[in-house]
């Protein structure tokens, strides 16, 4: 008995030795800061002077903060634009690439290029392509479509910033979601399509009655992932709309930028954490929806 116990203990120790290298790093650099983040939202602190308890005042202040509201609004608009467009684009691409076409592998690889390419590099190309006065896009609008010079779109300022961000994001991430859809499509039994063909169904009917319903759980997953990733948008806004020192104006600010700005520029750590809690809540709600959905679909 005593020997058995020690063998079990030995096994535990071996198991822990496997986990320890990762878990220690994970606990110190992820778990502890997460706990810290929740607490910090209820305090006022600038990082060097003594910390003071603030109760709910940080959250109360948020409700009257114009910049916060703009950041929240822009993030949500970005999300509403990006999620459906990326979903449709990646589904369409997946359906096309699921056909027997020549060079399928090459097309698949190409559509992944934007996803792996660094943001700094590809956004700088976009800023050239969409350059308001010199870029080829506006050049085409001017010479081919005869849009008057003064009405040419200013892609990276004012109301159009969000449109540019959405277009860019669809371009950059559709390849990734395409792969997820492709896996979903390959899971649909070919017999379903054969039966439909015998019944004389056309392409659109096959999509409507077979493909789309069969992909429900994939679509659900894609939409959840897309939404969460949109909530976290930051780099795209900074790269496309950020000024010389990387600052965002009220028309292009997003939640994560506001967290960053409040913490690392204004050093209002408590307030910044309160904004972070809003981001957390948004992601949390979507994750909960995902858990419930997963149960339903599987």
């Amino acid at each position, binding site marked *: 008995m005593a020997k058995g116990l020690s063998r079990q203990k030995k096994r*535990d120790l*071996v*198991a*822990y030795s*496997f*986990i320890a*290298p*990762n*878990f220690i*790093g*994970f606990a110190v*650099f*992820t*778990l502890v*800061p*997460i706990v*810290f983040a929740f607490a910090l939202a209820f305090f006022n602190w600038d990082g060097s002077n003594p910390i003071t308890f603030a109760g709910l005042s940080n959250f109360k202040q948020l409700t009257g903060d114009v910049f916060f509201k703009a950041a929240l609004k822009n993030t949500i608009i970005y999300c509403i634009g990006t999620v459906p467009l990326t979903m449709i684009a990646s589904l369409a691409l997946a359906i*096309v*690439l699921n*056909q027997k076409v020549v060079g399928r592998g090459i*097309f*698949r*690889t*190409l*559509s*992944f*290029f934007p996803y792996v*390419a*660094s*943001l*700094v*590099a590809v956004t*700088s190309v976009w800023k*050239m*392509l969409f*350059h308001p006065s*010199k870029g*080829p896009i506006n*050049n085409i609008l001017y010479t081919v479509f005869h849009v008057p010079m003064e009405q040419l779109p200013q892609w990276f300022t004012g109301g159009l910033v969000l449109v540019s961000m959405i277009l860019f994001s669809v*371009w950059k991430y559709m390849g990734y979601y395409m792969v*997820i859809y492709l*896996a979903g499509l390959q899971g649909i039994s070919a017999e379903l399509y054969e039966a439909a063909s015998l019944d004389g169904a056309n392409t659109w009917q096959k999509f409507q009655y077979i493909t789309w319903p069969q992909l429900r759980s*994939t679509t659900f*997953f894609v939409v959840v*992932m897309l939404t*969460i990733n949109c909530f*976290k948008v*930051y780099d795209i806004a*900074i790269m496309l709309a950020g000024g*010389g*020192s*990387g600052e965002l104006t009220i028309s292009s600010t997003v939640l994560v930028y506001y*967290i960053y700005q409040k*913490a*690392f520029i204004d050093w209002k*750590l408590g307030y*910044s954490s309160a904004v*972070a809690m809003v981001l*957390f809540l948004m*992601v949390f709600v979507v994750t909960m929806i995902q858990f419930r959905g997963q149960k339903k679909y599987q």
Partner: protein
Amino acid sequence: MKSARKKAIAGKVLVYVILIIIAALMIIPFIWMLSASIKSDREVFQMNPFVLIPENPKWSNYHDIWTKIPMLKFVENTVFLTIVVTFLQLLTSSFAAYSFAKLEFKHKNTLFFAYIATIAMPWQVYMVPQFIMMRKFGLNDKLLAIICLQAFSAFGVFMMKQFYEDIPDELCEAARIDGMSEYRIYASIMLPLSKPALSTLTIFTFVNTWNDYLGPLIYLKSEAKKTIQLGLKMFISQYSSDYGLIMAGSVLSLIPVLAVFLCLQKYFVEGVASTGLKG
């Protein structure tokens, strides 16, 4: 019957037209980037006629970018970070995942719950307290900070565990009966079998670390510590109209990720698809 065949051909044509349009949209920015990287600033925006390769290609852009900014230092820092982070991530998460997937031990579920509970937690939510903590540890403006931040993700453990669970337990059991230690089983049976998962995790980690912007922006302040992304961004804000040089720098920053991706992509598509559907 004839009209059906016509329809089928029309369908095929449509598929190719869509494909070519999408492929063009995907690839044009990259072609533009390559083309602009060997042009002078005057030629970059020249549209009528648009030339892909200028008469006198300005190869010097690829030379000048190394002297205009400390590009070599940036590349060194990024390569160092990416290799160390990717190595640590692969090693520690496959290690932990083996234990979670194949061993029985006390508090297993509690420990794994810690990973599960935080996998959906955006880093942006706790990046501020994390910075404060790292600063206390004296890691501000140190490359080590980025390593600590990137190398121990819940995602890696989760992904590897999913993969290991699909490997039959009998393999491990048989090895145990043969007297192999758990470490030997991990090293000589599990690791060689998990190439697809390791490749996928390599691409994810490599691409994430190489392309990360916000992490380095928060931690790496002095120029000698900057990564290629920060350095390029800095260059762009300083010399916003040196388009040829900006593009040459961008092309250089893309080469390593594209190379890694092309080498491992065979597994990647498979990996994304499976982690995507399960995770």
